């Protein structure tokens, strides 16, 4: 790396320092070379790192921020929020005239800019009815007497303004940041008494998280059940036949997710191939066709098929490295086939089971497309709810909060995966 300019025969102090060819101390020269090498490898990585940070990390961070961001109330009703700070919802009394006057002035501006409905729809996530309240008041606020007093005029417009709870909600959601979306995502809400769980029959998200977890576990388990024999067979066949059979595993792996989902949609239908076959062999009669789609069964069957290769491949690579002499040794010591398998062979495959199971579980809890198409209403996952809140209900804060929880879950699982397998050891194909 160092340029050769002088050679050692030139006059150098003989101080015992080891020097490079150009006369700089070797230590310094090596440090410089190391620095240059570090810089060079960093220059190679930098373009992609910058690209991923802009195109991927920043969007995720932006989404995480949305789950706590809550500036609508403060931005639209700044003066109301400020005057409301002195009011105590526990006092049992409505805010005074000052607050109503502030609300009047804020709404005047908001109605002019046509943004008053945004506050309404934001607060409606927390308290149903707020959307209508703001829309109605927005219409009436122009006709109010500018001289005041405003309190009676507001109460006349809508009796909800006489409710302590209305004001309490506005006050509760006036800070710039809110835990409200997160609480909502775990079926809790912020009430005057603090954080409370919602009534049993309204707890949809906990149910959904539970269902996502339970169904992912079932899918992982069925993948393991079906994947283990296949991996075992492939690892114990001669290389040539194993490679041929491997194609049967890799072809589904490489086939488009939508192709496989369409295939299951076609097969599992009531007028589909499987039902027709079962009727034909007289196992069921024509009226008793099985309902295998648009429910949990559909999701479990289709996702087991889709994720099965992700279980077989890591299991296979672990089983390939297990030496057959252990099992032979066990048998020579008198173990039966079963004991030799269960006590000697199986424990050695546990790392493969761990790797495959975590991988399948991570992939399955984040799945969206397949549950959406074959899951009906009872077979959908948390991802489907996130998509619903982004594209249909437009409650983006709640979507972000649900997404953050899901992401946290995946990151923890992946950390475990990294400890067991290591990201560097991920093998493809």
């Amino acid at each position, binding site marked *: 790396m160092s340029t050769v300019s002088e050679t050692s025969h030139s006059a150098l102090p003989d101080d015992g320092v080891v020097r490079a060819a150009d006369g700089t101390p070797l230590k310094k020269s090596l440090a410089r070379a*190391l620095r240059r*090498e*570090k810089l060079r*490898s*960093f*220059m*190679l*990585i930098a*373009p*992609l*790192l910058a*690209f*991923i*940070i802009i*195109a*991927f*990390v920043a*969007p*995720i961070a*932006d*989404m995480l921020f*949305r789950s706590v961001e809550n500036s609508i109330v403060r931005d639209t009703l700044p003066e109301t929020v400020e005057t409301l700070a002195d009011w105590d919802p526990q006092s049992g009394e409505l805010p005074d005239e000052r607050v109503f006057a502030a609300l009047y002035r804020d709404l005047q501006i908001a109605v002019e800019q046509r943004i008053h409905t945004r506050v309404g729809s934001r607060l409606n996530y927390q308290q149903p009815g707020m959307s209508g309240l703001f829309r109605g008041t927005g219409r009436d606020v122009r006709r109010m007497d500018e001289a005041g007093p405003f309190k009676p005029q507001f109460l006349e417009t809508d009796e909800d303004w006489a409710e302590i709870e209305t004001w309490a909600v506005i006050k509760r959601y006036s800070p710039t940041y809110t835990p409200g979306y997160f609480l909502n995502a775990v079926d809790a809400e912020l009430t005057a008494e603090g954080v409370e769980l919602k009534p049993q029959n309204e707890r949809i998200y906990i149910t959904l998280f539970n269902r996502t977890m339970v169904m992912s576990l079932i899918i992982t388990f069925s993948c393991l059940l079906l994947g283990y*024999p*296949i991996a075992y*067979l492939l690892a114990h*066949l001669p290389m040539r036949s194993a490679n041929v059979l491997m194609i*049967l595993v*890799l072809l589904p792996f*490489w*086939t*488009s997710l*939508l*192709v*496989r989902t*369409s*295939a*299951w*949609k*076609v097969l599992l239908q009531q*007028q589909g*191939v499987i039902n*027709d076959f079962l009727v034909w062999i007289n196992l069921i009669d024509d009226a008793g066709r099985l309902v295998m789609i648009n429910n949990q069964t559909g999701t479990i069957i289709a996702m087991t*098929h889709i994720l099965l290769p992700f279980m077989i491949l890591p299991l296979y690579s672990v089983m390939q490295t297990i030496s*057959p002499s252990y099992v032979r040794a066990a048998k020579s010591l008198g173990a039966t*086939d079963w004991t030799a398998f269960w006590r000697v062979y199986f424990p050695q495959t546990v790392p493969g089971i761990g790797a495959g199971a975590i991988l399948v579980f991570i992939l399955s809890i*984040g*799945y*969206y*497309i397949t549950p959406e198409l074959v899951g009906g209403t009872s077979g959908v996952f948390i991802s489907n709810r996130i*998509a619903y809140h*982004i*594209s249909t209900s437009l409650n*983006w804060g709640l979507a972000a909060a649900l*997404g953050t929880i*899901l*992401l946290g879950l995946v*990151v923890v699982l992946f950390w475990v995966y990294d400890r067991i397998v290591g*990201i*560097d050891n991920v093998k493809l*194909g």
Partner: protein
Amino acid sequence: MASPLPPYASSLQIGWYYAFRVICGLIFFFLIFPILVIVPLSFNAQDFFTFTPEMLALNPEGYSLKHYRDFFTNPDWQLALWNSVTIAPAATLIATVLGTLAAIGLSQAHVPYKSAIMAILISPMIVPLIISAAGMYFFFSRIGLQGTYLGVVLAHAALGTPFVIITVTATLVGFDRSLTRASASLGADPVRTFFKVQMPLIMPGVISGALFAFITSFDEVVIVLFVGSASQKTLPWQMFIGLREQISPTILAVASVMVALSIALLFTLELLRRRSERLRGLAPG
């Protein structure tokens, strides 16, 4: 299992030997049947999703190419096909170039914060797609990329890079550093060394990474649904809509074409794997 049964095997052992093979056969059937069954179904002359009596009797009148004709003439499907074959190569190119450079950089001996950088670069593969899609939808809307081709291409490129990094890194693990040193000692500059010595050797990894990136984009639907708009709809998008609203039999024809594509891809990868093993002096297995 590898050797046939020994002569002293008990009847239980023989029974289990065959039972195990039957079980494996059934699982292989489960894996492959759904993919293969849609191919004959796509030639159905009726708009049904099951075999008609004419088809089972192998009557030529039960078969028709009408679903394929629809795929190749319907403007909706043609737009989707065209978008897929333009977006995927563009995303692949970005992912492959950036990913290969980064993998080479990461393979150097002294990279500070290596594991943290690796975690960031691999993250698009780990984060559930719906979360990436949501994040990109919000963020790209802010910077004006939502609903543009560029936005979709960049998003797909980001998803594809981890695969390039992983495959190229795997090739570089077996890379003999003395080759670049030899090249340098013979007077080649680093750029020349890279293209003449290193590149040909890591090529199989780069190509299979590129194939992964391509198929990631070609098969991706969640991101494009959120980041794209109707004019960027791709084949998976059109299939998704077709499956969600009402199933049109054309989907089976499209699916069969895509199965053919994945078979082609599988064979390309297999050839690459053999080539790479040959280059490393391992026996092609």
